[in-house]
């Protein structure tokens, strides 16, 4: 019997240069996150610091929007806040039902058929169309014939939202298990009934949260509104007729002004706009957490 010499095997982490390289790589990956945090923190800090000093009750509810040379404290941004809310809301009313219907077609009716595949693929492509092109499109097809209005802006935003809503809703419909559909068919329900009363309620949490995220993105858009709503300084209550205004377009025009009052108003409007977008996003997260029945 000979005692076999066991080679010393080190089962712990590899040592030396290989280990160092691995650690360097991990550090670089963590560093990438830190690099992203810096501009984000910088922007949010600046907007909150400069915006908070501009915002007051009269800033949020007063109007009309004063000329650029006027210092902060006179007039208010209500016309722009109203415009943003109404135009984005109208865009959502147009785009969300159409988007959900489109998703129902792609997932429930089209399936793997060629038309559904094309629609799915082109929706993806359409999400990449620059927002300014949507503005030019609505300008050419609507504004040239019917004039500037909040409605035209809503059309442009709806064009941006539509493909996003289709894709996010489709992902949610995909998660609804097939046995649920089959059980409903077995009870003799028609396809539309199954879709509307069984599949859609099962996926509604995810669909609503996807739609809210799309609305949050649309609320901050400027380029599609520049050539569709023009800009005014007083509240235009009629969204269907006449030029309107929005927070984003006000920020855009004020950003290049040398006057401190105009810049302060831009910061205040920026904080308001970010607050609207964040509230929508937080509501979306809450909806996801509360109502999502099926998830990956």
């Amino acid at each position, binding site marked *: 019997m000979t005692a076999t010499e066991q080679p010393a095997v080190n089962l712990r*982490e*590899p040592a030396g240069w290989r*280990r160092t390289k*691995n650690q360097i*790589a*991990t550090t670089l*990956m963590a560093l*990438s*996150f830190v690099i*992203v945090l810096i501009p*984000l923190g910088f922007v949010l800090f*600046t907007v909150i610091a400069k915006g908070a000093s501009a915002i007051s009750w009269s800033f949020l509810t007063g109007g009309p929007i004063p000329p650029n040379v006027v210092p902060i404290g006179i007039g208010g941004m209500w016309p722009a806040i109203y415009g943003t809310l109404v135009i984005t809301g109208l865009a959502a009313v147009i785009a969300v039902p*159409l*988007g959900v*219907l*489109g998703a*129902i*077609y792609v997932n*429930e*009716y*089209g*399936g793997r*058929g060629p*038309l559904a595949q094309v629609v799915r693929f*082109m929706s*993806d492509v*359409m999400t*990449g*169309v*620059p*927002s*300014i*092109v949507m503005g*030019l499109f609505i300008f*050419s097809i609507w504004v040239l014939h019917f004039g500037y209005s909040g409605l035209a802006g809503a059309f442009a935003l709806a*064009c941006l939202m*539509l*493909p996003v809503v*289709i894709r996010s809703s489709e992902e949610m419909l995909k998660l609804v298990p097939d046995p649920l559909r089959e059980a409903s068919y077995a*009870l*003799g329900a*028609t*396809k*539309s*009934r*199954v879709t509307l009363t069984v599949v859609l309620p099962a996926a509604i949490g995810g669909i609503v949260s996807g739609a809210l995220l799309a609305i*949050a*993105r649309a*609320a*901050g858009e*400027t*380029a599609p509104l520049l*050539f569709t709503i023009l800009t005014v300084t007083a509240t235009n209550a009629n969204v269907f007729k006449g030029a309107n205004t929005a927070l984003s377009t006000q*920020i*855009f025009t004020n*950003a*290049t002004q040398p006057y401190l009052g105009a*810049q302060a108003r831009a910061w205040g409007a*920026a904080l308001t706009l*970010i607050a609207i977008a964040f509230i929508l996003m937080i509501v979306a997260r809450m909806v996801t957490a509360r109502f999502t029945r099926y998830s990956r």
Partner: protein
Amino acid sequence: MSTAAQADPAAPAGSASPLAHRRPLGDRIFQILAAAAGVLVLVILALIAISTSQQASSWFSTQGWKIFTVDWNPATNSFGALSFIYGTIITAAIAIILSVPISVAMALLLTEVVPRRWARPIVYVVDLLAVVPSVVWGLWGILVFAPWLFNIYTSIASGVKGIPVLDALFGQPVSGASFFTCGIILAFMITPIVTSLSREVFATVPAIDKEGAYALGATRLEMIRGTVWPHSQGGVVGAVLLGLGRAMGETIAAALVIGSSPVITSHLFAAGYDMPAVIANQFGEASGEFRAALIGLGVMLFVITIVINLIARGVVERSARRKRGA
């Protein structure tokens, strides 16, 4: 997945008719409505192409090949777009070069390093970058970031003075608003999308491949280089292309920070212009052929981004399908 062919179960409830009985009217109307909503996407894309090129046709017809010159002067009715095309390419390239390494590293961090319960909050934070509206990036860029960068630009410029290539690239800053500032801002804006797409691609790498690499004694870096990377190259190229498309079409932030000067120069710290920015800034006072030229720039932008998106989606889809099939 239920398809139209399986519509048989949809026969009216409780009726004694055969299963092949015609479906009720409401059911068919709903299907038609849904199909119409789906087709609407195709209709809108077609309408964008038709209506904008119609409005821009006079630019293409009167200027001919002159649209590819540098001469842009509304006062003399000369509308050459070359300097804008140049600016678009340069700023998008800067954005991609700055953003892609960070995005890919972060996607790897999220999929391979941190545990899942940490990954979610990190994703939320990265997505916040996308929630900050373009115009707020622009406002911050022109009023805060550009003046701060200008100091850095001037010190870099004085450092490279007289050095042949570097001087031509990094010399002569006149203000903070420049190609490079625009590229940096665009990089911030496209990082979330490139990260999330790369993450999706990395997530498709089979766990068994990774475990195999670890079982052979690979470190995490060696595992990534040996299994994750070869598996995901195609998909990451697609993600980068989609980021490129976004960077090229991003309008308002660019319009505010690019400096608004239609020139072609090798100086990255000089003020420039790009296609979406000139449309946003000059459309208000444009009419006639001037307006046609600006809409024409929009048509070019539309065509470029559509082509990039088609290629990118094709690449992503193909690599995803190959993975599923294998």
